[in-house]
């Protein structure tokens, strides 16, 4: 027992060192743009972990999840930009964004409680689109969201007067903005991973699992289905809202187009592809699906080097290959790249349709 604990400590320490050094290595090896990609991967990890609570833990197929990302992002953008001339501090804006998203999660979750499976999917999809369309049109009669133009000049993430958009020197090292974002996002991811793992292995987590496995049996076993479902929606939305706030401050510009259905679908792909309900799998899925399209951008260079010219637009090709990769990965690993040990067992024993 003690030995296992010690090896866990060693593995944890190595992992921490690895994660801390990763962006520096990326910057040296692949260039600064890759640090930005790592930042995005962390944001998507936050999103995927949040959606995993709803879909993976509680089994509620939510196709409008990106709406909560949008709520968090717009809360940040409206309170920290020239749009209304407000510049609230981070410690107020981020929690407010997460809380607003949670509120939306409950408001949108409440009417869907009786719906099952694919009906739930289409209703959440509808809500997601409705929120996006409202964001798109709430520039008249009163201009709130600035419509399709979106909100620009959003304040970068900042602690007091320290803005993460400006480089800082620390212990002889110059920390570029992408590096600083990386460490902030990494901290958020670690907190969310911690919460997700603790929730999974708890009375609440078991209640979610019960609903996922058999809603009726769960109700008859004393699970207050309604509240437990709403809690899942709210928790998932909270993480989504947090990620949205970080995204707005990181990007400096948001518009409704950043929150279309394809984004929801992407996040869903991340968790299914990685291994639903299994935190390490979900993280792998998020990182993989963020990095893969970016890595495929290099196809243009490859064509130049090997064929002498660009035969096909790399931007078109990369999404094509991405789609093919999605299909191939699912065909070879239908339970995900890194399914939980339990699902693996289940999958081997009996393949229920």
């Amino acid at each position, binding site marked *: 027992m003690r030995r296992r604990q010690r090896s866990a400590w060693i593995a944890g320490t190595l992992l921490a060192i690895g994660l801390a050094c990763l962006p520096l290595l990326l910057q040296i090896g692949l260039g600064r743009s890759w640090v930005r990609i790592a930042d995005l991967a962390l944001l998507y990890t936050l999103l995927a972990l949040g959606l995993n609570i709803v879909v993976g833990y509680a089994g509620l197929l939510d196709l409008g999840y990106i709406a909560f990302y949008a709520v968090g992002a717009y809360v940040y953008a409206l309170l920290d930009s020239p749009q209304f001339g407000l510049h609230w501090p981070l410690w107020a804006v981020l929690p407010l964004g997460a809380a607003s998203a949670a509120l939306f999660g409950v408001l949108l979750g409440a009417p869907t409680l009786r719906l099952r499976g694919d009906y739930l999917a289409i209703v959440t999809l509808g809500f997601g689109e409705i929120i996006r369309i409202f964001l798109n049109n709430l520039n008249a009669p009163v201009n709130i969201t600035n419509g399709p133009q979106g909100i620009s000049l959003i304040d970068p993430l900042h602690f007091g007067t320290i803005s993460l958009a400006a480089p800082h020197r620390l212990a002889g090292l110059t920390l570029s903005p992408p590096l600083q974002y990386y460490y902030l996002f990494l901290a958020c991811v670690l907190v969310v991973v911690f919460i997700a793992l603790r929730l999974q292995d*708890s009375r*609440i987590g078991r209640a979610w*699992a019960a609903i996922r496995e*058999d809603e009726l*049996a769960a109700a008859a*076993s*004393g699970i207050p289905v309604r509240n437990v479902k709403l809690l899942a929606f709210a928790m998932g939305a909270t993480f989504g809202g947090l990620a949205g706030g970080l995204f707005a401050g990181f990007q400096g510009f948001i518009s409704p187009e950043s929150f279309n259905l394809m984004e929801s679908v992407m996040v869903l792909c991340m968790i299914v592809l990685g291994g639903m309900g299994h935190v390490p799998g979900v993280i792998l899925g998020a990182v993989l699906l963020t990095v893969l399209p970016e890595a495929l951008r290099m196809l243009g260079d490859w064509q130049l080097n090997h064929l002498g010219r660009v035969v096909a637009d790399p931007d078109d090709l990369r999404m094509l290959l991405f789609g093919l990769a999605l299909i191939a990965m699912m065909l070879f690993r239908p339970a995900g790249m890194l399914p939980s040990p339990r699902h693996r067992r*289940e999958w081997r*024993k009996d393949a229920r349709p």
Partner: protein
Amino acid sequence: MSELLRFSGVSRHFGGVQALSEVSLSISRGELYGLIGPNGAGKTTLFNVLTGLIPPSSGEILFDGQPVHGLPPHRILERGIARTFQNIRLFPGLTALENVMIGRHARTHAGLLGAILRNRRTRNEEAAIRARAAQLLEHVGIARHAQALAGNLSYGDQRRLEIARALASDPRLLALDEPAAGMNPAERDSLARLIRQLRDEFQLTVLIIEHDVRLMMALCDRMAVLDFGEKITEDVPDRVRVHPRVIRAYLGGGEA
């Protein structure tokens, strides 16, 4: 013996079909009470109405003197009525132990903060849940399968697991929907022994639906007979056996 559960004039219809009409029953504390009747007589509907899965169209259900009709399922379970299902409904992808731990939900309290902070109180509660669940698995005789997925257990063990899950909520009334279905005679006998033993040990009142009339006659203290949603009679097995309407409606088919 004092009364634990009373149905008065409970009806339930689905569209034009009268699944239960004006059913009145009275079950005393500590009784093993059987519910028999042909297929489609309304037995399972009665269970669903009792456990809050379906609200009654009219009538009253009093449990320990308090009305429970119209309450949501989890509230009814909190009051002390737990059930099993005719077509076993476990959480197939979870382990046997987890299934029983979920049954403990209504008697425990840890919330979101407890789960995240995992403070002493939550840890103690978790340990207690786990210990209690293990103990119940032991009681129903499937402790060796604690870490097996419920969906992979044998049929008989799944039935037992479902009973253990129901017991985890510390019920006063245990409602078993065809617990012996699909079992061979030896398994049935051992199940009957288990039910008696559980009643005595946990001071339960047990309500059973079962098709095996011989088993029911041997097991139950009293029984009610339903036919077409109506109660034909409610009596001790020896008198039910010879009741003319019962013979006509149910036993007449060659089983008597």
